[in-house]
């Protein structure tokens, strides 16, 4: 099945009902996308499909056909969100961080604090209490 993964044309021969999360981690070797619950509650597996954040544990691979998929690896190593998450201690244990950054990535440039909270409401973090995540996201926008 063909799709665009982090900007590159990709062809993976996995079962169409395999979870996109497993295709990314097992077939494509992109382990930055994490599994936290397997039922779309925690958001640790958030990736972008055609620009929209989705829980890749809920998406059958078939739905990625001809789509554009972006994972945390697609942001490179030096995105402002990545730097600010580390500098502001928006990442503690780090397991929710890739998904959290992907959810933050699509927030509007003029997002208010309330917009940020709503935008990240599908991503659970058990370490930070979220405040440092808001600080990281806000700092990355300045």
């Amino acid at each position: 099945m063909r799709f665009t993964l982090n900007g590159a044309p990709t062809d993976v021969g996995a079962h169409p009902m395999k979870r996109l999360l497993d295709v990314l981690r097992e077939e494509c070797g992109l382990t930055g996308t994490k599994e936290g619950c397997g039922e779309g509650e925690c958001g640790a597996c958030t990736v972008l499909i055609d620009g929209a954040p989705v829980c890749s544990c809920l998406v059958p691979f078939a739905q990625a056909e001809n789509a554009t998929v972006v994972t945390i690896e697609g942001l490179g190593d030096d995105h402002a969100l990545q730097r600010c998450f580390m500098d502001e201690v928006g990442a503690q244990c780090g397991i929710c961080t890739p998904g959290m950054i992907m959810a933050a990535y699509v927030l509007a440039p003029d997002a208010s604090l309330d917009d940020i909270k709503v935008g990240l409401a599908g991503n659970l973090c058990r370490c930070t209490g979220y405040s440092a995540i808001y600080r990281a996201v806000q700092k990355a926008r300045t």
Partner: protein
Amino acid sequence: MPAVGRSVSRKDGIGKATGRTRYADDIALPGMLFGRTIRSTIAHGTVRSVRPAFDTAGFTIVDHRDITGRNVVALIDDDQPFLVERTVRHMAEPILLLAHENKEALLAAKVEIEYDVAEPLFDPEQSTQSFKDITIVKGDVDAAFARADVIVEGTYRTGHQEHVYIETNGVIAVPEDDGITVYGSLQCPFYALKALKSLFGADAKLRVVQTETGGGFGGKEEYPSMIAGHAALLAHKSGRPVKIIYDRVEDMVATTKRHPSIVRHRTGLTRDGKLVAMDVNVLLDGGAYSTLSGVVLSRGCIHAAGPYRCDDIRIVGRAMMTNTPPNGAFRGFGAPQTEFAVEVHMERIAETLDMDSVTLREINALKPGDRTATGQLLREDASALQVLEEAVRRTDFRRKRETLRGTGKGIGLSLFLHGAGFTGAGEERLKSKARLDLTESGVRILVASTEIGQGTRTMHAQIVADALDIPYESVEVAQPDTALVADSGPTVASRTCMIVGKILERCAIEMKRTLGTMSPAEYYGAKGPLSVTMEHVPPDWIRWNDDTYQGDAYPTYAWGCDVVELELDPDTYEVRPTHVTVVQEFGRPIHPALAQGQIEGGTVQGLGYALLERVVMQDGAMANSTLTNYTIPTTLDTPEMDIVMLENHYDGGPFGAKGLGELPMDGPAPAVVNALRHLGLDLREIPALPETLLSCASR
């Protein structure tokens, strides 16, 4: 520029934010099998037969007969087996292990188990088997009640709490170097090593390496020893690497939770609000095996009188056996339960006396020179009054208590303390060690203390850098590997900074003495490698008697005061916290941003404990074992927080620091319930779900 006191860059680098950091499930090894645990489906009984109902070709199958050493997860009382032999004592107890190279085939395998079912016991109050009994006596409480003008009684209950680290439990066991190495998500590599040694016998070559760990909160203190043993048994039998990763349901059903509690208070006071007698009874539901229940009870009992002065106290505690999965370590370790009880009780006392509850706390708060329930003399770093006054001042608490009346908004307060380090003689028995090696460009820290998100690597490196007077960047931190690092003890009990950090500081001072005027690089170039290992030295004034429970229960305490403001929906009884003020004194922050993160994160866990998190137990197992049905706070459940860190240095800690990790967990639940009391709801239990509040309102 000194590193201590500054929010330097985390040693984790940018790996966590780029997804490059590898957690257990991100590691794949050649020839690796996947492991699965077949568990009991009854809460109590005996196994009559176990029959694999699948084609076993390609499977590795392990039961208790494959164990060459002792079938016991060695910890304290050694009563929990790795694999059931005959008796089942709780739901989801491990019976059989399977491994296969194909995950689908592994999950499809069916095992038929026949049982003789026995009557299970679920109610800890009906249990007659106690894992641990504790009595703390100060003065003569029965005589003191005769001097009381007023006596207030109450019973307070807390439920289970699930850790919900976002990374579920996982390990990989690898046959290598004529032995087995276990790589895993865990807090205490040497606990796992001890359990493995018991499982395989003293001669086996065993090694445990911590992989990057996606949250712990106590939930990866003892249970990973069980999983490490399972994976190691499968790896040993198959001769191949075996990975076991729990899915969320298995993690919630099978692994430990916070102990549910029932705490009874009977308290005598003078009419003007002075505590004269405190009689406290603590009961914990330990679950089916003792595991850590005795020490959780110990910390719970020692904190049961709260941050208050009273000459006549009796605290009696028991941890009871029930046929439920063992409860275990969870941030706070018994203290959140007992401090919930005493703080809600204090609010009810103030109501009974018709006294301002802040004034009641001011009259009774422990001060330097006072003695705690165990007779411990408090030193100058006892800050109950300071945190209370600052929280009251910042929130304009007394005025708000008046102006909010009748508005549907409530405000409540809690005052609390938390002992840092192991309880009683624990640290003396542990004899923790830390090691510091010279490198070509600086130094390397070699300790067993794990980074689980809280910032261990960073904070330890700051301490060493400043004690050696070298740049923070030149300090490396080794991954905890039992073949390499010094056994600095478990990463628990708010001890990683105060205890292990202090040993590292002493290592660094000793190394600096040897280096003289040379830099690490100069010394290394001229004289080669240098290694310093030091052992923990408890303060010389510490006295503790484990039989009488008298003495210095902890080297020192951290102090906190939480103020919660909230709104109650009059139709749905849904509670929305709107603002939380947290004032805490924990010596000093080594890294202010990390410390703030501990306080914010712990406070939100406490709010979840108070308002959202209910474990529904059905037939002895968690029935709501998904993140859909067990809810933790999201961004939208989390209020704005005002965090204040007061300083009061403790000489026994590195650069004056005490322990912090657990303290923030103790305060939110009673502050929430006291704010609901301000709204007229006589609540004495958590979680404060709408249905619970409705029944309160209609009482």
